[in-house]
């Protein structure tokens, strides 16, 4: 379930981890275009390490090492064919997936609707997010509050949310409640009645997030770095402001709903249900809708960042967040498999060049990693991130830039290639080790228009990546001179200063939150 309030701390028993977890970072909802990306990790802590430079000597001695682990037998993996969901295309173009799973007595479902924050009116940035919050409480059959009472008493959920390129309605419940919960969800989908009170509540929540956005150092870094890559006014990075969310009205929510609901819906059901009865029920619910309208073509421009260095001063921190960013690519690019292997070598895990150099060898960072990301239908970003104490900002940045530069100057080795491919391929089955993951993947492929066997052909392509491919993609996509560097940190503590990096003048970025306050939501009543 989506948190009731985004971006705020949840109090949990205190714990600290060996490596940063995804949850600890990267709450940025928008901007990086990695939604549903199959990239193994968000590029905060990404890559794998090349044993070059300081590591050359140990590598030579490596051969003498008695490696007891290589004597442990690795039997043939048990046969496994992931269960694919049944795909049904209705006459109107709506696509349904049914994925049976009878292990537990639950049924869950979702409807994915094309159109998200990148499609909103820039003057009303944040509209989709507000829609995502207010929509679930707008049933005609039950008021939002009565719906909450009913669902919670049954330990069931109905949620709505907005993403960069889509909105979604999802539900889940015990098997016995599945019919009732489905009919309530369907009521929200087909007969929503948006109301001012719930919009106001959503606006207040969103305003809290805006007001607080400069308290979170890594949030600032991620957000502002994305703007450097795509431009501040890009559909992928423009941010909601008090004025733009204040401008959203109930009529806007209605218009948004009416506009998006006619797109190609993808309905997915998983869990403990009878497939024949379920198919009949879904046909009855969806086949009567008008034929789906194709999504309009997009004409986004992706120029990439202006090279140079930018700085944001934050006086209450003792650690710098360094972002080194450029433009990435999209997943249709045939170079993606080779790039995935390159990512693994640059920043994929404990053995990546970045991790080995900046964390293990230099001890300059806890969180370090990155790579070149691919989104399904637009270029994602190249992004390397290092968090280091103020005084070592220049050293750590230089070390990270050195590793990026090294992608084109220090040839990849057979050992690196083999390791990266082993890492990717031996863990590949974790992309489809549950029926839920298989279903989610099929929905994603359908949504972006990829073939159903994409994952399999991607795996085969990964196997075929050669050293020559790696060297070629590194030369083609790694351009240190085109990257932008952003540092968020405590100015007076950063010594030596950023000018030592010789990246040109340091551009300060002003992150002051625009006021005045929006007109109070009460005025809209």
């Amino acid at each position, binding site marked *: 379930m989506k948190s*009731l309030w985004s971006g705020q*701390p949840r*109090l*949990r*028993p*205190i*714990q*600290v981890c060996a*490596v940063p977890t995804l949850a600890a970072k990267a709450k940025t909802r928008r901007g990086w275009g990695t939604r549903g990306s199959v990239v193994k990790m968000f590029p905060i802590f990404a890559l*794998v*390490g090349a044993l070059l430079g300081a*590591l050359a*000597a*140990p*590598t030579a001695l*490596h051969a003498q090492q008695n490696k*007891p*682990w290589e004597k442990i037998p*690795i039997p043939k993996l*048990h046969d496994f064919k992931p269960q694919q969901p049944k795909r049904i295309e209705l006459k109107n173009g709506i696509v349904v997936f049914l994925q049976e799973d009878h292990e*537990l007595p*639950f049924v869950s479902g979702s409807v994915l609707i094309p159109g998200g924050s990148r499609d909103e009116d820039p003057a009303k940035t944040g509209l989709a997010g507000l829609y995502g919050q207010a929509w679930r409480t707008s049933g005609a059959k039950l008021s939002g509050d009565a719906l909450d*009472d009913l669902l919670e*008493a049954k*330990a069931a959920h109905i949620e709505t949310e907005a993403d960069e390129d889509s909105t979604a309605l999802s539900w889940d419940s015990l098997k*016995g409640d599945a019919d009732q919960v489905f009919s309530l969800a369907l009521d929200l989908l087909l007969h929503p009645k948006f109301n001012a009170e719930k919009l106001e*509540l959503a606006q*207040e929540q969103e*305003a*809290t997030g805006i007001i*607080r956005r400069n*308290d979170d*150092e890594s949030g600032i870094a991620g957000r502002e770095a994305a703007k450097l890559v795509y431009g501040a006014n890009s559909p992928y990075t423009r941010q909601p402001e008090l004025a733009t969310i204040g401008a959203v009205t109930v009529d806007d929510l209605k218009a948004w709903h009416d506009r998006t609901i006619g797109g190609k819906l993808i309905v997915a059901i998983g869990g403990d249900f009878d497939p024949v009865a379920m198919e009949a029920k879904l046909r009855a619910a969806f086949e009567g809708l008008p034929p789906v309208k194709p999504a309009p073509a997009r004409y986004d421009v992706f120029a990439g960042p202006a090279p140079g260095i930018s*700085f944001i*001063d934050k*006086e*209450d921190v003792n*650690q710098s967040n360094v972002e080194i960013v450029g433009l990435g690519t999209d997943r249709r690019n045939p170079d993606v498999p080779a790039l995935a292997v390159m990512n693994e070598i640059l920043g994929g*895990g404990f053995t990546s060049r970045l991790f*080995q150099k900046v964390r*293990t*060898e*230099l001890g*300059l960072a*806890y969180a370090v990693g990155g790579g070149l990301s691919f989104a399904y239908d637009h270029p994602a970003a190249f992004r390397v991130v290092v*968090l*280091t*104490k103020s005084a070592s900002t220049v050293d750590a940045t230089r070390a990270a830039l050195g590793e990026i530069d090294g992608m084109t100057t220090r040839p990849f080795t057979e050992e690196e290639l083999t390791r990266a491919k082993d890492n990717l391929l*031996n863990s590949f*089955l*974790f992309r489809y080790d*549950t029926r839920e993951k298989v279903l989610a993947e099929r929905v994603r492929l359908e949504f972006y228009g990829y073939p159903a066997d994409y994952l399999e052909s991607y795996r085969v392509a990964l196997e075929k990546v050669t050293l020559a491919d790696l060297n070629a993609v590194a030369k083609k996509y790694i351009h240190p001179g085109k990257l932008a560097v952003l*540092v968020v*940190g405590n100015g*007076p*503590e*950063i010594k030596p*200063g950023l000018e030592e990096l010789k990246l040109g003048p*340091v551009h*300060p970025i002003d992150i002051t939150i625009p006021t005045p306050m929006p007109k109070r939501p009460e005025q809209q009543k």
Partner: protein
Amino acid sequence: MQSRISSWFWKSFLALTLAEIAFAGAQAQDLKSFEQRITTKVLPNGLTLIVCERQEAPVFSYSTFIDAGDVNDPSGESGLAHMFEHLAFKGTSEIGTTDYADEKVALAKVEAANNAYEAEYLKAVGRDEHKLAELEKAFKEATDEAHKFVIPNQFTDIAERNGAEGVNASTGLDETRFFWSMPENRLELWAWLESSRLADTVPREFYKERDVVIEERRMRTDSNPNGRLFEQFVATAYVAHNYGRSNIGWPSEVSQINATEAMEFHKKYYVGANIVVAVVGDVKASDTLPVLEKYFSRIPAGPKPEEMTTVEPKQFAEKTVAIREATQPIYMEGYHRPDYHDPDDAVYDAISDIMSNGRVSRLYRSLVRDQQIAAGAEGVSPYPGGKYPGLFVFFAVPLPGHTPAEMRDAIHKEIDKLKTADVSDEELAMYKTRTRADLLRGLADNQGLANNLAEYQTRFGDWRELFLQLDRVDKVTKADIRRVANQVFVAGNRTGAWIETAAPATTARKDGGAQ
């Protein structure tokens, strides 16, 4: 990693009248089905193995649960358990070294050089700066020498090359966990790797890793307003017990932990009797247990470490912490509560559920929906840990224009309602339904299940308690909730902490080196 957060918290999320009847059957069936699929074995060295068969895909997940965390850090060495957890990724006498015999000698020299440096550094009278510089240089030379034998990150390299997914570990105040998932044909390799690092840890690259941990502290605590608030909050709420201490370590302490101390911690706490290892997935107990036994028998036997004697004395005065800084406001308050063995443990979970779980919860409806003063408000327990008496914590995030004081007053009003009137039948039933449903939902995740089985086996001596706890959940009454609220939520048992926004102290800053 929501599902991997300690089940103390998860429990509080677990939670019908009609459906309750329907569930009674499902529950019995469940426990029975798990009893058929779970095998446990205690090895001669005291270590407990749990194997749970779940054949959805050819993978397994494991969880190693050590009954020791930062609460066990000796005085002056806060952050030690966590530091050791990082060390457990650095390899063994066979992994990560080109020549262990020589490396061992080099590591002893590193330790001696570090001790010499620290001894001089800590001199209160007559510290010789010149000598200190020499000693620092000697220390650096010794570490460089030792580094020559290191094959960096070879332990994780072997794991990742063999398909390990989600390689990580976590250190809480109460426990340390190691975990990942892997293709099932790597089970023996994993058993060798895991038992090796538990039994044969080498203090390799210790001092560089210490710098990494200090960076982790800067990220989680120093450079994060909430991190700073939480640290001050627990430090104020506790006067005697180690729950009040910074878990990642006070800067002066974590920066002076040495490898000898870390290895002593290992010797005392990483003994068979203090470890439970759970494996869940496409594994057969009959094939798996002999393999696990072979490898995990390498872990030294040793007495279960003695329990801590310190008991937090009864609080007799209300305490508050006010942080005034240029960040947005937040309010929290905590009340001391008993440990998880207390017969009222489930009552605290019920209060937490009714006060803060979802959009029907009292705090949401009151502070967020009706009064529209907060973006969110919750009451959770136990915090910061649960093995020893922890806190029941309420917190609220004000909407723009509202203050911590308003949060405090609104929370107190809701607490007073708990004390003066019974919760409704519907609320109580909702808690019980959600607990059951969430327990069920968690059973379909290998990693989450492994974590829970290992934790319940450690905390209750029997993994079945994961299911049996539902009996205690069922027994919670309205009178229990009122009684506990009146007992615990009193001013003299309270610590309040908040951030109130103040103008930035820019005048005190000099021109920066950054630009």
